[in-house]
């Protein structure tokens, strides 16, 4: 089952395309990071997935074949928006009660236990909680709905390092206990490997890179050697990024065969996730979907595993 599947998904706001030709098939049971610069279309994609906006073209389904935003889908998808929207003038206790009354499925005991564990006082006004606690409250409410898919829009952006750690620990512990899928967007690349095992990179409304993070890392290498041979070596691989000095060149390449024979003087090194993401973001024309998939296979929406 795919938790999110899109086919030629596109969204236009007046004259600007926020998303174009977006083909995705995200397998279940993953923690997916959606990465891209500001304005890349991350929020639009997430909003389409939870039914907060309708596509201009193409289709998007969640949790198998449920139309995004349909009643069945809304029951099983939980969403925490960018600024963790809560009613600031309600007490924490009332906020829990409101959420319970607005949802058909809500585990109040679980929510209360979690809030006790987080030491969030139930009588405090929501607006008086710290930013970190507000984020934790919003997350607790989302988790109490017992979702099969949890969607988080920029959950870490406004949090300090400690609150970030606590917030993600809460998400990860809930995943370990219940095994639901998570999609979260972020523009911070450095911490992703800790949380995510699947990556979607968006730039200018298009999917630049998608796949299992381990697969992405093993299928890319940094080759370095003498500059005068770089074109020759580059011909053997798909080159994502080339950096040249007078005598020395460094190529970030995608290899399908693993270790190929490199001419003498060339070295192959592993690539870090941050390096890889930045390389794909820096050069929009490098857009390709690594892994065993050819772009036309993707349209069918199957992930070869």
């Amino acid at each position, binding site marked *: 089952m795919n938790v999110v599947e899109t086919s030629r998904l596109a969204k236009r706001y007046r004259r600007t395309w926020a998303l174009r030709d977006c083909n995705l098939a995200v397998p279940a049971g993953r923690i997916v990071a959606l990465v891209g610069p500001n304005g890349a279309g991350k929020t639009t994609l997430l909003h389409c997935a939870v039914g907060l906006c309708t596509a201009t073209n193409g289709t998007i389904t969640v949790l198998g074949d449920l139309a995004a935003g349909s009643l069945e889908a809304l029951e099983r998808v939980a969403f925490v928006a960018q600024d963790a929207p809560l009613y600031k003038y309600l007490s924490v206790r009332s906020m829990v009660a409101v959420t319970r009354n607005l949802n058909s499925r809500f585990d109040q005991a679980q929510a209360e236990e979690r809030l006790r564990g987080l030491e969030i006082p139930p009588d405090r006004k929501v607006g008086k909680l710290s930013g970190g606690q507000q984020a934790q409250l919003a997350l607790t409410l989302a988790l109490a709905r017992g979702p099969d898919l949890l969607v988080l829009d920029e959950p870490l952006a406004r949090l300090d390092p400690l609150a970030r750690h606590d917030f993600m*620990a809460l998400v*990860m512990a809930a995943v370990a206990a219940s095994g639901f899928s998570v999609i979260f967007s972020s523009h911070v690349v450095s911490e992703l490997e800790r949380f995510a095992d699947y990556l979607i990179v968006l730039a200018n409304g298009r999917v630049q890179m998608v796949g299992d993070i381990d697969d992405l890392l093993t299928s890319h290498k940094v080759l370095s050697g003498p500059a005068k041979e770089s074109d020759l070596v580059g011909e053997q691989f798909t080159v994502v990024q080339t950096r040249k000095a007078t005598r020395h060149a460094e190529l970030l390449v995608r290899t399908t065969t693993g270790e190929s024979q490199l001419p003498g003087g060339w070295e192959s090194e592993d690539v870090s996730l941050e390096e890889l993401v930045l390389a794909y973001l820096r050069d929009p024309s490098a857009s390709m979907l690594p892994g065993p998939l050819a772009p036309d296979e993707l349209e069918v929406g199957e992930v070869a595993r």
Partner: protein
Amino acid sequence: MVFRLEPRSGVPTYLQLVHQVEHALRLGYLIHGDQLPRVKDVVASLSINPNTVLKAYRDLEQKGLTIGRPGQGTFIAASPETVGLEQLTSLRRSLASGWLKEAAAAGLDEQGTIALFMAALRDFHDRPVESRPARRDGRQRRVGAA
């Protein structure tokens, strides 16, 4: 067993966990029958992906170092041949009061000491096998049934 992560090390997270368990076994902090922390506890304390912890535990199991009992947890099944704590202490003492003292007296700084020690260690391991005692790698030797 307490795990910690070094984000800057460049070593994949799951391997860091594997290495730390192996290290703890070698030093005798973990022994046969000990339970490894439960996945959800590791996940909550480090805030990392549960799949990463599962991968590390699977890796340890494949190496025959641990065994997973469904519903109960993951337990240490084997110990690599370890050097006892007492012996370690005496080795450490002889290093500190002997060679390290001499090196300092000769004017070697910390970096120089490390470099020299590492070079000597490499030479020592590169010698032909028969002229040195068997390496204490321990991965092959198993205590207890896996």
